[in-house]
């Protein structure tokens, strides 16, 4: 029967024997958990755990973003039924890599108040590795919204950090379902601020605001069709498609013959066809 523990064990492959030895050590003496945890990368390896997308427990993850030690951390915490306090202790006293391991393990562990608490830690700091570990390459964010005290306001702030650090939306599986008008306003304000400073804007801005428009969205999307960046034009076209406003079709029709990129043209064609 497939269980998260069995699935993780399968992905650990040749590192399973070392992981089992560490588990025995912790089972014999619970106080060894914080001593064993920092050594996981050295003992289980930092190589990529596999290829493709897979379901582990309640979560779905992209295996190439997870290393054997990350999955080993999840396996060890599950096998020892580590409490939220024990897990937070590992995070609080861990170095940058240990914290990243624990955040990646969250994708596989049952969600709970610990997940919300650690999302808060990630929000408070500005370490790209940690934001990626918590939010990217899995569906943890999407599974957490409106659960365990992780409310929409907190979700908006965390997702805005993805924009702030320019990490692509598609890496946080299902996060686009979280589109809402308040988040669109936050994104548009950030975009205006960045443009005033002559800095680049998160491309997914155009994609997301079309799903939950707020004042200014239509103008920003239409303007995006003329942007010099191919990715922005594609996102703007997709945003307009999501917006479903017939009165904006003429802008797509006008742009279509001048658009050099096939992928963008295909979306514009769908817009024009209604």
């Amino acid at each position, binding site marked *: 029967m497939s269980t998260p523990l069995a699935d993780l064990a399968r992905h650990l492959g040749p590192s399973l024997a070392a992981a089992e030895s560490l588990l025995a050590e912790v089972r014999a003496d619970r106080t060894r958990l914080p*001593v064993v*945890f920092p*050594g996981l*990368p050295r003992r289980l390896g930092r190589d990529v755990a596999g290829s493709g997308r897979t379901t582990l427990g309640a979560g779905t993850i992209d295996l190439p973003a997870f290393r054997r030690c990350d999955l080993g951390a999840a396996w060890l915490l599950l096998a020892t039924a580590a409490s939220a306090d024990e897990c937070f202790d590992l995070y609080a006293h861990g*170095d*940058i*890599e240990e914290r990243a391991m624990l955040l990646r393990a969250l994708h596989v562990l049952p969600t709970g108040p610990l997940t919300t608490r650690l999302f808060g830690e990630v929000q408070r700091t500005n*370490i*790209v590795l940690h934001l990626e570990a918590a939010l990217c390459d899995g569906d943890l964010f999407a599974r957490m919204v409106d659960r365990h005290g992780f409310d929409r306001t907190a979700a908006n702030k965390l997702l805005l950090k993805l924009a702030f650090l320019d990490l692509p939306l598609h890496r946080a599986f299902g996060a686009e379902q979280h589109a809402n008008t308040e988040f669109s306003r936050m994104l548009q304000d950030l975009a205006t601020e960045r443009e005033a400073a002559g800095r680049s804007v998160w491309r997914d801005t155009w994609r997301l605001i079309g799903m939950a428009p707020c004042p200014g969205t239509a103008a920003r999307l239409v303007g995006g069709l003329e942007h010099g960046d191919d990715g922005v034009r594609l996102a703007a076209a997709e945003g307009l498609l999501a917006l479903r406003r017939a009165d904006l079709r003429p802008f797509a029709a006008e742009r279509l013959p001048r658009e050099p990129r096939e992928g963008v043209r295909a979306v514009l064609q769908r817009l024009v066809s209604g």
Partner: protein
Amino acid sequence: MLIFEPHIHMFSRITDDYERLSLAGVRAVLEPAFWLGQNRTSVGTFVDYFETLIGWERFRAQQFGIHHFCTMGLNPREANDDRVNKDVLAVLPRYCEKDSCVGVGEIGLDDQTPKEERFMAEQIELAKRHALPVLIHTPHRDKKKGFERCIAIVKDCKFPMERVLLDHGNEETIKITRNLGCWSGFSIYPNTKMDPARMVAIVLEYGVDKMIVNSAADWGVSDPMMVPRTVVKLEQAGVPRAKIEQLVWKNPIAFFAQSGRLDEKALLQPARSNLRETFDGNSVLRGQDPDKV
């Protein structure tokens, strides 16, 4: 020439020092846990300090392209303090397993008390359990006797000599350590301990095998540039470049690589640096534009 600075307390230094070190070719530093200039009153301040060594200080070094390693331990001065000594020993195992921890230290003797000896021996056992080398601080007063006592404790513990670095040596102690199989460390100071000219004389007489030089720079009158300065003096004295490289790069790497957590190849590239990142919300930029630093 790349330099591995094997004993420096960057906790007590400023970002200008990191910049100067980096420009002088210092690619990696080793920061031993030590006495902070005044006694601590609870184990909690040790925990916070240890976490600075694996966290903020490592991050700070990386901003200047410098790899940061540490050794963990209870220093001899505070081994005498019953408010903290046993509790620090109890928390050390978790910190000995941190990835950037490549040894136990600095342990050793200061006033040469029975308590210092007991905690030194206990920490040598700790090093055995974690398969780590030990960095031994030797006394500044009654040094020769202190060296001999440190060596006797290491032997009593049946700890392999090749995993021992006896630090803060001088012209007298090299005569004791030369044929022991341990590593001999020399702290080059502006006025006290050793100076570059005396170090040159020692190298000319004894060579560089199992010799290590450091600045031991801390919060006192000390100079983080002492290893680069010594390199210049050695070159001027005609010591072959390969020998100097062995002294300031190969030797410290060989010693601390016995931890299994240090790889010379990884050190050939500067540490990763992303000036846009912060650690616990804190950067070293103080409002400067990261693109212009």
